[in-house]
């Protein structure tokens, strides 16, 4: 269905061993990713949403190439000299406190090839200007900056090696709303200017709706719904997506907080549930849910699902 994809993930699984008995054999495995298929479109922003622990960051690491999936394949459709960069959630630990800002920003460059200092500084100054930092800050150290400024530094660092794709792992979660808006604007500008591809990980649906072209909803290491963000978020098909959207408090809500949800606990990813992963929390769960579900395309999106949901009339609150 697509023409230009920068990366393709097919059937990615990721397991982490945990515990060790006295012979060093693991007690078992954490199943962080359980069969992810995704196509990432050039120049677009893909939003990834889901509850804590559903494997978003693990997915990011697979995309970055710092973790080899236990199963499945990542295909990269860009030259070897271009790469994927990342911006992390926690601006505190993502910058080395012992490097001056100009070193931090140019690290992706000098870590790989030796360059004269003057050249690096020039590059740093250039990038700093791009992300809205004044050049005189280049000799300071990261801890002297506010959260928002640190996130700008992190973005500048991601840009320095001129990547095609930037993975943004909850880049604004630790920031205040007023600062979040600044960063989101910056990201948009940079994308427009450089034709970057973003993978934007978040649990804030409204940010995803604002920023992303496409959205993938993750649950327990699987994508349960994937499609154009306006379509998916306006008319979710999968019961989990619906639950997520229902749970988000909005300023305009009139109905108060409503009824209490019964089961909010995520199933364990050590012993994966049989059948549909969502069945224990699903209002619509029925007979067909005892088998694993596959992704099925609908008009606007792909939905992992769920005979029941596909056939049940949509019931989305505002």
């Amino acid at each position, binding site marked *: 269905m697509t023409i230009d994809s920068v990366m393709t993930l097919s059937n990615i699984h990721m397991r982490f061993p945990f515990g060790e008995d006295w012979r060093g054999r693991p007690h078992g495995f954490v199943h962080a990713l359980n069969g992810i298929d995704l196509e990432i479109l050039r120049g677009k922003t893909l939003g990834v949403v889901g509850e804590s622990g559903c494997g978003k960051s693990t997915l990011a*690491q697979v995309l*970055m*190439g*710092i973790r080899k999936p236990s199963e499945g394949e990542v295909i990269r459709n860009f030259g070897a000299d271009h*790469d*994927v*960069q*990342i911006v*992390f959630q*926690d601006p505190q*630990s*993502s*910058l*080395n*406190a*012992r*490097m001056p800002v100009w*070193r931090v920003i140019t*690290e*992706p460059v000098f*870590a*790989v090839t030796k360059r*004269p*200092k*003057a050249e690096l*500084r020039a590059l740093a100054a250039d990038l700093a200007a791009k992300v809205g930092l004044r050049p005189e800050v280049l000799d300071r*150290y990261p801890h002297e900056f506010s959260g928002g400024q640190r996130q700008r530094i992190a973005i500048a*660092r991601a840009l320095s*090696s001129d990547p095609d794709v930037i993975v943004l792992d909850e880049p604004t979660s630790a920031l205040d709303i007023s600062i979040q808006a600044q960063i989101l604007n910056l990201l948009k500008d940079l994308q427009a200017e450089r034709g970057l591809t973003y993978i934007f990980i978040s649990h804030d649906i409204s940010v995803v709706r604002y920023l992303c072209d496409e959205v993938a909803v993750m649950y327990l290491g699987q994508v349960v719904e994937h499609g154009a963000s306006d379509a998916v978020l306006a008319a979710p098909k999968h019961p989990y997506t619906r639950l997520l959207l229902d749970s988000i408090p909005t300023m305009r809500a009139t109905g108060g907080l409503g009824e209490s949800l019964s089961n909010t606990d995520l199933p364990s990813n050590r012993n994966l549930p049989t059948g549909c992963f969502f069945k224990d929390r699903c209002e619509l769960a029925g007979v067909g849910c005892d088998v694993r579900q596959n992704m099925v395309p609908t008009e606007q999106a792909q939905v992992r699902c769920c005979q029941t949901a596909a056939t049940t009339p949509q019931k989305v609150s505002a």
Partner: protein
Amino acid sequence: MSDATVSVNPIKRVLSRVDWGYLWYQIKKSPLTLGGGAVVLIVLFLVIFAPVFATHDPNAIDLRARLAAPGWEHFFGTDEVGRDLYSRILYGGRQSVAVGFFVVLVAGFIGTFVGAFAGLIGGRVDVVIMRLMDVVLSVPSLVLIMALAAALGPSLINAAIAIALVRIPIYVRISRGQTLLIREMSFVTAAETFKASKLHILRWHILPNILSPVMVQATLDLGSTILLASALSFIGLGAQQPTAEWGAMVATGRNYILDQWWYSAFPGFAILITATAFNLLGDGIRDILDPKQKAR
């Protein structure tokens, strides 16, 4: 900026990162640290300028003035061959302090590198190194030191080498632990994403960040090393005569403790005061640099 021409050495970089004003502010708040620091400075000063402050040649014997009581001629009295104890204590401090610094530097450097290496490489290498360190730590250290010192032959430098060897595992543990922590930080993950080499990560991320806990440990170690060195000298495995050394002086002096208490009392006090001062300073620096670090 002339930055492009200046080569930056890591120590200077670390020091340049210290906010001296802040450090002073913290030290001022803690009278104990301040006191410890002051005594350390005084001790270092006295010891470095021992020739200036000494009233006698520390090795000049005078059999006719053996075991003289403290007085104007000999501030702290004399020893069993009539040497001036005051002057010997001044000179003796040189040995103790030098051993302290030597051990901490040698063990610190080797231990830090080995630990960082093990932590960064991980896998088998790490396991082998750490098990080895565990084994060394399980061996009673004093016996190991005594045996090593005996094997190398008694001399202060050999004692220092023995102590340094035995203390390496402590630094390996600290630096490895710290390396593992730092390796999990997202700036290292970031560096991995742009395919930085292990060497780059070691040089730019690990080492600069483990230096401060290592330095904290090192300051704390100074006190205990001085103590340990004097203990070795006490059992005759340290400094050799006629070189003055505090532990050795206490050892000889104990034969005279009933009638000539000053012989072992003054060098004993010298050890106590110096070690206490270094420990207070180290404690204070730890509190400032690394308030979370647990006492070991």
